[in-house]
């Protein structure tokens, strides 16, 4: 467990939790990224500004962090491009079909003690771990 970073993980988690609380108390919305982003495909006039604003903040945040002197983690993607595209399609389609992702189900839904989110989180965690195991230890990539 030499890569374990408990302090930064705990601090980052608190910030994510605060974000979810703020979006709920101010906007009455669940901070589920797949829903916020995916609904841009079916835009409605009074429902789009807050989505664009949230996504804008999400994208600018790491740049801002660097400008304020923070050290950004290096982004490493080892998979070949075709695999990256396939994974992106699966994540996009799957999160919309399953009504949520790590944020909407994994953080917000678990915080609401939603049975659906608890189920979805257990399933995508298991599927992610199984996929990682298969690719890493059976296929060897």
């Amino acid at each position, binding site marked *: 467990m030499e890569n374990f970073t408990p302090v930064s993980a705990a601090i*980052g988690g608190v910030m994510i939790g605060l974000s979810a609380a703020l979006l709920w108390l101010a906007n*009455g919305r669940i901070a589920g990224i797949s829903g916020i982003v995916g609904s841009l495909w079916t835009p409605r006039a009074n429902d789009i500004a807050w989505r664009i604003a*949230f996504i804008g903040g999400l994208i600018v*945040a*790491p740049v801002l962090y660097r400008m304020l002197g923070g050290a950004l*983690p290096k*982004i490493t993607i080892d998979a070949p491009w075709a695999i990256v595209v396939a994974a992106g399609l699966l994540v*996009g389609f799957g999160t919309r*079909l399953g009504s949520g992702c790590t944020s909407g189900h994994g953080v917000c839904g678990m915080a609401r003690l939603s049975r659906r989110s608890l189920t979805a989180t257990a399933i995508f965690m298991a599927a992610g*771990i199984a996929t990682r195991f298969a690719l890493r230890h059976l296929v060897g990539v």
Partner: protein
Amino acid sequence: MIAAIAALGAGLLFGLGLTVSQMINPAKVLGFLDVLGDWDPSLVLVMATAIPVAALGYAFGRHRRAPLCGTAFMMPAQTDIDRRLIFGAVLFGVGWGTVGYCPGPAVSALLLGNPGTVLFVAAMLAGMGIHSGFQSVLGRQPRPA
């Protein structure tokens, strides 16, 4: 306008949280999913602190009729565990375990200069669009996440 500013603040906080916790690096997330390798439990700790803080927010909301900058709390209405939830979560998990990106970190890392991130987000948006296409063909309204 105020609602958009609040959402901007929430987006910034979310992105900063992903950055500080290093969750915007997919290799870090793969280290968590690789439980039988050199396991990195950081993601567990991110969720373990995020969930109770978010839960406090939802608890405060129960004492209010409406959000500060909106008309109603948009609580997901569906409660049944159906095949779409299960199948969707499986597909998402397979994609997540392949590259290590889920939607939040992928979008948040868009400007950090990795072409793989841009490619992943483009494919993810296409996957979401395909789902919306199916929804409209089937005549169903998309559900809030």
